[in-house]
């Protein structure tokens, strides 16, 4: 019995679908309540604040798909943030080199994580807990005190709308060319995130290595017996995680024009990345979900915090409300347990 394609997609991606729905509802009502909702300025500001956690959510997704966890994503973000604040300035060639170096350093750190997990045979959660400490230590070495500098033009261009980007670099008639008009108001951060997703995540998912990641999370024994490249996939997963974390760190540097080796912030970002992944429908047990869902999960997290600006809530209550909302949102997964009729199904 063949189901219609849309129905099938829905049932096979319940988590993602509900996350989309939740995000749509929250985002639309947020904009409706906002005095200047649906405007470019607000969109740009929101996009700016979401980009870093979006990248981190993507970074966390792949190790989670394996059935593991990467507790170092926040630390790698911080490390690459500091590296970027050192290197991404000067002549255009130096800037480009700096960007490449930052991204490579994140990927290299991820590679190290992967190697430790695979060849050291250490569980990811504890391996990345330790390497996260190393990353923070390295970040402190690079930037003992907050500071550094990121090219101002780049900073402006990448954190505003497409028009500003074109204007800064004098392309497309300084932003007024006819063919760029319809895109002029789109915030550049969104484009960057989308570009990275399309250029890196989508091909990865469609590759055998990407499929192996899902297979490992679903049934590692079966994946091995099927002849899938288990070790290669695990190493790739963590390397990509490091790469996406570096995207986040790079963006943070561009956005704040500085590097800050803040341990607390690193920890908070890591935990938030896990929350975003769960909200986006990826299962912590592995095998189900994807980076797109995690992007939406990141969006949900951020939109919730945006609400506090427009609603007149006592700022002291904000952390509490954020916490309760998070708890309630992840508790929706509990509905499954109420519907289960064979209690053995509760134990995977």
């Amino acid at each position: 019995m063949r189901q219609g394609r849309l129905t099938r997609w829905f049932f096979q991606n319940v988590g993602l679908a509900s996350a989309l729905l939740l995000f749509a509802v929250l985002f639309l009502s947020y904009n409706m309540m906002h005095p200047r909702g649906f405007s470019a300025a607000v969109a740009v500001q929101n996009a700016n604040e979401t980009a870093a956690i979006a990248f981190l959510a993507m970074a966390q997704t792949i190790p989670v798909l394996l059935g593991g966890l990467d507790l170092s994503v926040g630390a790698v973000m911080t490390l690459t943030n500091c590296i970027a604040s050192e290197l991404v300035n000067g002549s255009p060639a130096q800037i480009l080199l700096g960007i490449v170096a930052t991204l490579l350093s994140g990927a290299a750190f991820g590679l190290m994580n992967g190697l430790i997990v695979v060849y050291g045979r250490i569980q990811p959660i504890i391996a990345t807990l330790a390497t996260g400490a190393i990353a923070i230590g390295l970040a402190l070495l690079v930037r003992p005190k907050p500071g550094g500098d990121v090219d101002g033009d780049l900073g402006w261009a990448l954190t505003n709308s497409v028009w500003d980007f074109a204007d800064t670099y004098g392309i497309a008639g300084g932003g007024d060319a006819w063919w760029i008009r319809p895109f002029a108001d789109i915030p550049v951060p969104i484009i960057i995130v989308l570009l990275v997703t399309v250029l890196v995540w989508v091909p990865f998912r469609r590759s055998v290595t990407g499929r192996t990641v899902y297979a490992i999370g679903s049934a590692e024994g079966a994946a091995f017996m099927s002849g899938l490249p288990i070790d290669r996939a695990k190493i790739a997963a963590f390397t990509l995680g490091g790469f996406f974390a570096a995207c986040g760190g790079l963006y943070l540097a561009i956005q704040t024009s500085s590097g800050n080796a803040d341990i607390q912030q690193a920890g908070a970002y890591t935990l938030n990345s896990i929350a975003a992944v769960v909200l986006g429908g990826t299962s912590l047990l592995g095998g189900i979900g994807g980076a797109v869902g995690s992007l939406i999960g990141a969006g949900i997290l951020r939109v919730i915090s945006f609400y506090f600006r427009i609603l007149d809530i006592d700022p002291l209550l904000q952390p509490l409300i954020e916490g309760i909302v998070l708890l309630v949102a992840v508790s929706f997964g509990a509905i499954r347990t109420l519907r289960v009729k064979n209690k053995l199904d509760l134990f995977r």
Partner: protein
Amino acid sequence: MTDAIVEYRGISKFFAGIRALENVDFACKPGSVHAILGENGAGKSTLIKIMSGVLRPDSGEMRLEGKSVAFATPQAANEAGIVCMFQELSLVPDLSVADNISISSPPRRFGLIDRRAQVRRAEELLARVRCEDVDPNAMVRELSLSRRQMVEIAKALGKSPKVLILDEATSALTTRDVQTVYDLLAELKNRGVASLFISHRMHEVEALCDTLSVFRNGQHIETFAKGAKSEREIVQLMIGRDVEAQFPPKPKPVAPEDLGDPLLKVRGLSWQNRLNGIDLTVHRGEIVGLGGLDGQGQKELLLALFGVLRDVEGEVVIGGRKGIPSSPAAAKTAATKVALVPEDRKTEGLMLGMPIADNLLASSFQRISRGPFIDPALSRKAIEDGISRLQIKAGSASDPVMTLSGGNQQKVVIAKWLMIDPDIVLLNDPTRGIDVGTKQEIYRLMRDLANQGKAILFYSSDYAELIGCCDRVSVLYSGRIVAEKQGEDITEESLVAASLNIDVEVA
């Protein structure tokens, strides 16, 4: 044998002190359907895993088509043409059927997986195994076990094997699918593919295979052509001693009126769509069997009686008290104690990573405790009793239970439950995948327990067992009891007919 397609010489494999394979010489000819027989622990599984690249031998040599080979990974074995269809299934539940069939070498476009080509390939292979009803885009998780096995076979076929290994490949298949597999094996034989067939079902082996090899205790005992030995001789080779009666003697059938009050009475038990009004009774001293084709509700019935299912409707009276247990914990501590030996000993019966001792005591903490504390003397005695009562062959009670053979593992599960002295013992296909010797011990044990006044309700997928062990057999079809046979009426014809829901007069 120079005309063999695969040849093994001197293969040995050790696991943590256990001799899984010892100096095995084995060969297989192309175009043959070659059965591998042996008890669990005989080494069949290990040999298969070595052949298919999952494990590497500690010593020995392997030749494929005359050339010396060594496989570092299953992938390497596949590329050489040795493909295995595993008992545990190598399917990934959260990927689609098409993804699974082409999992490691999918058709590609621009370096990425070509989904449409995958689906087409899956459709072709599914047609070859006559499973066109399986949707290539469905998640494997959604399929029943028998469909999954067919997908696994389709996947194996897709790798164009020269040597196809089937490890208990037909254990969960429907009759129609079993026939498909038989036809497939005949077709492969004509094409010169060598098939290695591991099964515990003698009638299957006799129907399909032209060559038989017997393994015992990690050694290759003998290889012979079909018909060269009688069934009894074969079993003798497998267990190394002469086997007399397979089943313990049954007491004379008692008329229902003389049985007295049942210990377990079930009326109109229903659950979801799997149980549709079951009526059943079991008295003290009785062994009642559940028959019928796979998946007619037998499993669910046992789970329901043990308190694992929610929202079960109908009336259940256990030892005179109404009500179904709310959980296994409740079932085992009720006035009339119920125990369940579950279907899958590795994931449901045992904590594999823990020692034998801990597994044995898992249901009996109350009994070995004085107050809140466990009494070491009581627990030691309980462990010793458990091991000796069931004659569990183990090094020491603190060895991890995963080092035991399948039969001994099942004995641990049973011993665990006997420790609480249950009144009703439910068993879910207890002898599946277990060697002949241990099977006989389990049959004898069940009869002993019945003679002690316990009520035994057990499901078996093997007719011979039901015929040999049970005082009464209730056959299930579509979640209902469609026939009850007692004493002399329990025959293969009557059971088969009842399983298919046909009314047959037994002469």
